[in-house]
């Protein structure tokens, strides 16, 4: 499957109020499929609240709709894949990668065993991110990078229309970060979905995103990464500017790596 580029996710007058305090207001946003939008903003800007409201964990004002090719609106609820910032796994947790998939994909109670069909489905999904060899490992034994790729595979099952990534590489090492972004870049072209990435690393976000949004309780600025990073509002918001850094070179580098790694190494990733 290739992304059609014609369907879109639309937020209209989206807003979130927590304990009586408005944390997000008047968010109007279109995201086309095949597009990776990065949201940047200072701490407390409402980035995570935006995602939590989009997945339905906290109530929101306004609407969130998915419009298919030809302006046909979805009658089903939007299918959203979500990769959390960080999964707190206690060291003694017996939960395995397979348990995670069974819990999400099957109604058959996990403690009564796993059906072969569900296992095959999980393995197939994990293979997409080159992590099928991890299927029987405990979550507590995985490295940060492995866990994030497993969560990415989970977010892609079943195929979502919108993929939300909340600081997915926070705490990962350089290699883990690169591999994660390469995988995401590949998803963007292979699946019919829009991707929304929340990140505090401006340069990393700029190097993978098609579009960038500066958020601080509302949308301050929306455009290509170059435009947003060059915008004076960015300096006002963060207190520093990164305009003039060699962004085009970084982008090229990232895209070249993504092309090279399009086929992940055999036997998964160590």
């Amino acid at each position, binding site marked *: 499957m290739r992304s059609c580029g014609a369907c879109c996710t639309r937020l209209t007058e989206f807003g979130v109020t927590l304990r009586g305090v408005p944390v997000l207001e008047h968010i109007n946003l279109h995201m086309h499929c095949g597009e990776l939008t990065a949201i940047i903003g200072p701490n407390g800007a409402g980035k995570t609240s935006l995602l939590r409201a989009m997945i339905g*964990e906290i109530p929101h004002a306004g609407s969130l709709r998915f419009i298919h090719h030809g302006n046909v609106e979805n009658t089903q609820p939007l299918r959203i894949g*979500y990769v959390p910032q960080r999964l707190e796994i206690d060291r003694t947790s017996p939960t395995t990668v397979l*348990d995670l998939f069974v819990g999400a994909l099957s109604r058959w109670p996990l*403690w009564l065993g796993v059906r072969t069909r569900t296992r095959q489905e999980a393995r197939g999904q994990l293979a997409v991110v080159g992590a099928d060899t991890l299927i029987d490992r405990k979550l507590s034994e995985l490295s940060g990078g492995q866990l994030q790729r497993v969560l990415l595979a989970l977010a892609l099952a079943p195929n979502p229309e919108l993929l939300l990534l909340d600081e997915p590489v926070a705490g990962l090492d350089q290699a883990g970060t690169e591999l994660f972004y390469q995988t995401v870049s590949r998803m963007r072209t292979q699946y019919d979905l829009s991707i929304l990435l929340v990140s505090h690393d401006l340069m990393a976000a700029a190097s993978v995103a098609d579009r960038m949004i500066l958020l601080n309780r509302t949308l301050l600025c929306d455009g290509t990464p170059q435009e947003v990073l060059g915008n004076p509002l960015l300096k006002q918001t963060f207190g520093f500017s990164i305009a003039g850094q060699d962004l085009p070179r970084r982008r090229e580098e990232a895209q070249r790596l993504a092309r090279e790694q399009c086929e992940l190494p055999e036997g998964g990733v160590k």
Partner: protein
Amino acid sequence: MNLLCTVMGCLPFDWAQYTFMQHALLAVLLITPLLALLGCLIVNNQMAFFSEALGHSALTGLAIGTLLGLQAPVFAVVAFAVLLAVSMSLMRRHSAVPPDTAIALVMAFVVALGVVLLSRGGGFAKYSSYLIGDILTITRGELFGLAALLGVVLLLWGILFNALFFVSLNRSLAASRGFPVRWLEPLFAVIVAVVVAISIPWVGLLVINSMLILPAATARNLAWNTRSYVVGALVISLLSGILGLICSYYWDTATGATIVLWASGFFALSLLFRR
């Protein structure tokens, strides 16, 4: 049930000849797996302190039931535990105080209130059986009630386990998969409250939390996935239940606490074989 009692009567042990011991054994075979099943998710959710507070609230429920002059104070105990479970579950999510502090505050208040109400006129001693429980007094009718309760929990664990398991992993992730996180947490708290409140007269509020937590904590040390975790907790709970009951007969000690000693022993042993 007559058949089960006859079978037990054929066992070559003197304790197995007494009807009260036969009933107690059946009760142990029902209560320990029931509590262990709940315990697996309590430990996953890091709610051990929460269930401890629920157990202690039985005292206040009992006091309220007695004050109201109820024939069967168990209804007041269950109602009060449910009320407390829902409020603590909401506090856990919305309170500005850290959750464990909030629970400690609630528990302190509730226990004090229960003791004050029950000790009026110096009559607390007659309620002390609630503290240590007495499984040997269980009646046939109560055994059927327990079996029904176990049936309901097994059914709920068939329908809800995956959802509750997922919420315990990560609330946002569960929400993104379409699980109704906003009512799953209070629902789980209510189930725990009902089971704890009903089991307390036989197990005793001092040790009920150990019977919830210990089998799960032990199985966690040995399990290689979620299934082996739950099945392991069930096996350990049954083993400690049976051994505890038999030892309490020979040692002439409180059954609930003797079961907990065995469960603690298994936990200590499991540390040696930790995976």
